[in-house]
């Protein structure tokens, strides 16, 4: 069964339509790129999927149920902006996540942090921007969730941090979970993706396997994207 399903999903902010009649299903075991220019509705879709927003019309279902308390146990969410309390130490955050989420694997998180040589006694605000983003991703990926929603996980970090983040996503791969990565930096993520979803102005443009797309068009996903969204 699809871990994420959207049927006729629409979201309006006042008169502005952010998503319009989206139909979509994401199966477990897939790493999916949610691709579109700025303002295309990527973040709105992710916020609908984790229950931070309510649909104006249509449905979004997580493992067959509407987002709510139960679905939050299945969904691990990386917001677009840093959201962790900056005064907390890395160690403190591990405890915080452990308290909130029963599926948090502290040993896995500690292991990933030690790879980065981040001192767990340091406060978040004393880490570099790149390291703060990495810590946040490690926390999110250390949950044994069914659906990971990563909103722009590689925006604004240097290429080495980007490699670390993509490596962490690959390393955490679980055939029973799906990962949705929203980004407009396609060249950097495309090798990691099973499927790609293009959205534009709140509408679904394309939903295909990344390798099929490359094979059919004889181009990289990045090139196809540039073609589809040429200004």
């Amino acid at each position, binding site marked *: 069964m699809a871990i994420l399903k959207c049927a006729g999903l629409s979201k309006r902010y006042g008169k502005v339509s952010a998503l319009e009649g989206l139909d979509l299903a994401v199966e477990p*075991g*897939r*790493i999916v790129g949610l691709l579109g220019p700025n303002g295309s509705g990527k973040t709105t879709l992710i916020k609908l999927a984790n229950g931070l927003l309510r649909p104006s019309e249509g449905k979004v279902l997580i493992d067959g149920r509407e987002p709510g308390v139960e679905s939050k146990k299945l969904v691990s969410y990386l917001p677009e902006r840093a959201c962790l309390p900056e005064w907390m130490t890395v160690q403190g955050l591990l405890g915080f996540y452990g308290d909130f989420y029963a599926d948090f694997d502290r040993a896995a998180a500690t292991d990933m942090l030690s790879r980065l040589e981040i001192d767990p006694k340091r406060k978040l605000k004393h880490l570099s921007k790149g390291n703060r983003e990495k810590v946040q991703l490690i926390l999110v990926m250390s949950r044994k969730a069914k659906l990971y929603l990563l909103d722009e996980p590689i925006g604004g970090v240097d290429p080495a941090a980007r*490699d670390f983040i*993509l*490596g962490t996503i*690959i*390393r955490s*791969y679980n055939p029973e979970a799906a990962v949705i990565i929203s980004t407009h930096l396609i*060249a950097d993520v*495309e*090798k*990691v*993706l*099973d499927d790609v979803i293009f959205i534009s102005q709140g509408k679904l443009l394309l939903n295909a396997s*990344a*390798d*099929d797309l*490359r*094979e059919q068009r*004889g*181009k*990289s996903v*990045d*090139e196809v994207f540039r073609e589809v969204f040429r200004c």
Partner: protein
Amino acid sequence: MEWRLDGEGPIWAQMVENVKRGIVTGAYGPGERLPAVREMALEAGVNPNTAQRALTELERQGLVYAQRTAGRFVTGDAGTIERLRRELADGKVRAFLEDMEALGYSREEILSLIRDPRDVSGGERHEA
């Protein structure tokens, strides 16, 4: 191993080509154990499903075999590896011939160019 994935064509097919080159050049020796799917995925920076598909294809072509618990190994058969070497060489030669013919050279001219290539390093290409 150094992975060359340039974005042209499916990634799994590019991975197959990379491993084939590794087998011929000895980066993966005959009978040697290959990295596990996830390891290979991490090394190449690709999705584990993609690495899995590449390995399955290599198995199908008889270049790699799986042992139930121990993992996947490069074939130990010298004949198979030699045939693979020839296959890769034929591919290179065909691509080269196509390029040269597109430049307007006949087979004979190409052959003589190969026997006596002019040194074009150092940017003095146009001296003649």
